């Protein structure tokens, strides 16, 4: 038997579910406040993790991914999976951000963001180069008549029988913004968790701070990757796997993903922090 086709992911919102997810997030933040106090490292880290998760979830909506049809020039976007392309950019950013951790929070997260944006800029550029100089296909969006940034008309560059192809300039810009948000959010999660583990692990393991530093880095790194994936997949579900970037009508669905990311990051974040803080 053939099963129901792809879920279209209705455009509406479920107010009860959204309210519940916000209540859940507030309850977790409140519990952390009561347990640890508001001016503590743990509380601040939890807020940073939630913020980082939401940024990751939001950033995925910008990344132009066309999935399988894009590999045939049937649909615009990058020909790969959305969660994993976002992860590739976000983790490349995390690499740069982790390098810059000794320089402080702001420098580190911005360095992470720029790292992710640079990765996406190079990747998107090569997609355009392959389409232009390898396959002789100009870029054309299938979702909008006019590119919102450059004002180029799109429809007459679309080849017959396709929904568009390549990366119009707005998609390129979206990819860079998405890479920036992903790298920024991922590094923020990493940075916050690293501070918690560096503070708590020495007492937990009764060892010196330098002895547990590799464990703290590893734990924060693997949790940052894990939470990145959770948020990226939730966002990918939200856009049902493909998008053209911020000019895609699906972009309007992002509030749902932000609600979901906030609550999911709160849950995962508190558990990750409790690993060391209990």
């Amino acid at each position, binding site marked *: 038997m053939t099963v129901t086709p792809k879920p279209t992911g209705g455009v509406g919102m479920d107010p009860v579910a959204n309210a519940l997810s916000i209540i859940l997030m507030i309850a977790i933040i409140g519990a952390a406040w009561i347990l640890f106090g508001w001016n503590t490292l743990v509380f601040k880290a939890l807020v940073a993790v939630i913020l980082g998760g939401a940024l990751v979830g939001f950033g995925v909506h910008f990344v132009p991914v066309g999935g399988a049809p894009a*590999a045939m*020039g049937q649909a615009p976007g990058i020909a790969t999976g959305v969660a994993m392309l976002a992860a590739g950019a976000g983790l490349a950013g995390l690499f740069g951000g982790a390098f810059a951790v000794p320089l402080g929070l702001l420098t580190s997260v911005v360095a992470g963001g720029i790292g992710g944006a640079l990765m996406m800029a190079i990747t*998107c550029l090569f997609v355009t180069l392959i389409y232009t100089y390898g396959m002789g296909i100009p870029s054309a969006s299938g979702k909008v008549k006019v590119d919102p940034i450059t004002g180029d008309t799109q429809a007459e560059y679309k080849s017959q029988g396709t929904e568009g192809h390549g990366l119009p300039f707005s998609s390129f810009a979206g990819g860079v913004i998405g890479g920036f948000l992903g790298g920024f959010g991922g590094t923020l999660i990493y940075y916050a968790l690293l501070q918690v583990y560096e503070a708590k692990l020495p007492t937990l393991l009764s060892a010196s701070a330098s002895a547990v530093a590799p464990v703290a880095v590893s734990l924060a790194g693997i949790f940052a990757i894990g939470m990145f994936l959770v948020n990226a997949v939730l966002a990918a579900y939200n856009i049902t796997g493909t998008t053209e970037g911020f000019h895609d009508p699906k972009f309007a669905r992002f509030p749902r993903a932000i609600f979901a990311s906030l609550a999911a990051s709160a849950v995962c974040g508190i558990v990750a922090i409790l690993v060391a803080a209990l």
Partner: protein
Amino acid sequence: MVENIVIGIGLTAFAGALASVAGAAEDVESDIGSQGDPNSQVQLAPQMGYIHRIFNKAVSGEPPAYGLWVALGAGLAAAFLQVNINPILALALGCAIATLVQGIYATTAYLGRIASLAKFGQPVYIDILKSMTTVTMAHAFIAIFTAVTMCYLMNAALGHPFPLALLGLVWGIALGAAGSATGNPFYGKERQYQNQKFGAGVPVAASGNIVRYAEAGERNSLDNGWFTAKLGGPASGVCFGLIVFLELWRTVLFESFWAGWGAIFVGLILILIFTFIDRYAEVWARETFGPYAKPEGAAK
């Protein structure tokens, strides 16, 4: 100080060169195995009545698959380093075991997918497994070994805080992401659909009608590797090489300026440069290839 920077730049260049090789090998490997998005067409063809002899190795998308191979090579190397095995031997051994795992995954993916296509009469060509698996493994070994060596340099020589295996996971996923983004359209459109019009996307109606016959005889995936090694592979290599090189270069050279903001500023400038190149190529394509004939019924 100057010497440190010179060594740093040397390491950066070396890591970039390793990354370029890794990217090129990764893309050719995945194209020989029809991994990633072009896989959907290899999977669809028998359903449309086009029985083929193309290797169909759907382990998962390239990014997670390469995340696994590279992290596995790096993790095994890290474990071997723990028991004081020589680093070069540890890296080579770890990557060899990771390659074996890759090969086994490839065979089960082919057998599983093709056996599940029995309804459409697609037979299992066991000689494909015999002749292609080793070729993909060879390419995979090059990609894994260079990527793991690059991670080892970052960790041991450039002093990145992440341990080897975590770097392997991060850069493996990035490698797969860059390679699939750059290489997939070239294999998917240019090679699988060589019979379609050049300079246009594949019409949805033609889906599944992939090229199955070669210049002489029947096309197999080695022909596809030969084809994509001409542009898709090297382009993926340059793409991933640039990502790694520029990421390290701006950090090593400019992080000491303005308490780290120097590297960020340079990164921003690089992004702007790439944006201009992208815009130039886009406009060039629009002017050179011109608009297509009025696209009636093009949109759904």
